């Protein structure tokens, strides 16, 4: 039976918690608030003193919507982030689910498959990016294999129409395995009785999948979709290493834009404003997803 909290328990608890709490408050909570605070200033890297400018940074971002040649870089980045989220989240969720279902059915070689599938997730983004720069060269392996199938491969990272897609494919390849493990864990946690009862009730394989398995997986699916969406807007490493936002801003992502605004243009306040907007947009999207998938996570 749980005891009522005593003061000594509380003290002990907080001592155990203190390193974590201190780091959490400073590097996450305080940082978030500090970021919000910074967005109202013109700040550089530390060479001159910050200057209070109110909403000016937000006004600048708003004005970027009205350039004559199309919207400004921040909104291009947000749009790219959205495209990225749509394609990658559906792709990786579907692939992860498929692989988990396939693995769940077998026992022979299951461990081998599972281990090898997880390899792309273990490797660092720099290593993978360097490898794929080479694979994606117009005369590289990928186009060669495509040519064997009589498909003329595109110029991938050189072509504004396909560069973002190339990075999307790369992302799905590296993140699907982790989500596959989530799904696998969840599938293995579904008690056999459910399936047995369904069989007794006359269910066939497909009905069982749609009416039992999938609904039970709903919480996990929401988690995968939410985490996937959040990380889609966080894409940075591959862009920095492979394309630096090009060609023609086609691979500009929100975080990369924030990075170049801060560390390239020396405009930290503007970058902070971008991060606030980014946060609000992501929050809105994940809230919508939650309503749509309609589940509550149990703790």
């Amino acid at each position, binding site marked *: 039976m*749980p005891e009522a*909290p*005593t003061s000594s*328990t509380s003290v002990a*608890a907080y001592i*155990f*918690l203190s*390193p*974590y709490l201190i*780091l*959490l408050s400073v*590097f996450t*909570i*305080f*940082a*978030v608030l*500090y*970021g919000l605070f910074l967005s109202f200033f013109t700040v550089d*890297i*530390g060479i001159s003193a910050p200057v209070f400018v109110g909403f000016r940074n937000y006004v600048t971002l708003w004005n970027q919507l009205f350039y004559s040649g199309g919207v400004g870089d921040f909104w291009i980045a947000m749009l790219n982030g959205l495209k990225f989220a749509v394609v990658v989240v559906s792709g990786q969720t579907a692939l992860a689910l*498929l692989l988990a279902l*396939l693995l769940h*059915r077998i026992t022979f070689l299951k461990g081998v498959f599972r*281990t*090898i599938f997880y*390899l792309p997730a*273990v*490797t*660092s*983004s*720099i*290593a*993978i990016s*360097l*490898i794929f720069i*080479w694979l994606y*060269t117009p*005369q590289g*392996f990928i186009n060669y294999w495509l040519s064997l199938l009589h498909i003329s491969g595109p110029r991938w990272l050189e072509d504004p129409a396909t560069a973002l897609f190339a990075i999307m494919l790369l992302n799905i*390849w590296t993140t699907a*395995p982790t989500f596959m*493990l989530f799904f*696998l*864990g*969840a599938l293995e946690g579904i*008690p056999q009785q459910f399936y*047995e009862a369904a069989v007794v009730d006359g269910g066939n*394989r497909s009905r069982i999948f749609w009416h039992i398995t999938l609904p039970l997986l709903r919480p996990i699916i929401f988690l995968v979709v*939410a985490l996937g969406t*959040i990380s889609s*807007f966080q894409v*940075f490493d591959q862009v*920095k290493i492979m394309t630096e936002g090009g060609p023609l801003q086609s691979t500009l992502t929100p*975080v990369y834009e924030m*990075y170049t605004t*801060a560390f390239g243009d020396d405009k930290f306040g503007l970058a*902070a404003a971008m*991060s606030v907007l*980014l*946060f609000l947009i992501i929050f809105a999207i994940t809230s919508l997803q939650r309503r749509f998938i309609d589940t509550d996570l149990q703790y």
Partner: protein
Amino acid sequence: MAQTQVQVPAKMTLFHRKRRFRLLDIITYLLLGVFLCTSLAPFIFSFFSSFKTFAHILDYPPSLFPNPWTWGNYATILRNGNFPRWLLNSFIFAGGTMIFNVLFSSMAGYALARMRFSGRRLIFLTTLAVMLIPLPITMIPKFLMVSSLGLVNTYFALLLPFMAQPFSVFIMVQFFKSLPREMEEAALIDGASYYRTFFQIILPLVKPALIAVAILSFQGAWNEFSWSLLVLNSPDMYTLPIGLLFFKGAHYTEYNLLLAGSMFNTIPLLVLFFILQRYFIRGIATVGLKG
């Protein structure tokens, strides 16, 4: 973590087929085989191509095996004055993160899972919420904070943000919750303090969780890129990923060198992964069970 074992009568063999090979099985293994190839192929091609010379790295049509075979790429990398330093920095970063994270998140996880105190629910919910905050939101303020403390380009700058991670705390909480209470209660009745109980009795019981957290922390820090990019400014302080980026800047079309460099970054972790894969995978799968 625990798998429900249920006796399945022989007739109910929808899901644990041991005898007949059905068409569905063939298709399953075929599909799995395709994905096996797509998971492995890039690594295999890159590994072999890292032994090609510069003249042949972009041959068309591309060949799998190098001809001629050269160890020169790896030699160039090892001779580069900075590579050993980068390896060392990565070890310090990854090792340090692992040690501190395991320590701090197990302590925090224990408190959250097992102790009663006011504010417990708030802290737990905050942990969950923070896991969903995109990291880039705090990238700029964290950098300015570190910079104004004069810690840029130091090991501190690398380690501090990663010494206690919400996800690790979450994993520890889940594992602690699954422990039977009797052990602790017995120890407490015997007069042991919370601290003794924790270090001598509880921790050994959650070894698998500790290993999972240790591995994930090590892997995360070993592969970490964006924060290192921000806070490290001189080649002697670079970690391996940032060193490779810098190396790419100098040799951007010498793909043979770049591939050799990536193998450098990848192979140690792959070896670690193969040896300890049970723990890796278990750590991740926990989220699936409880989420």
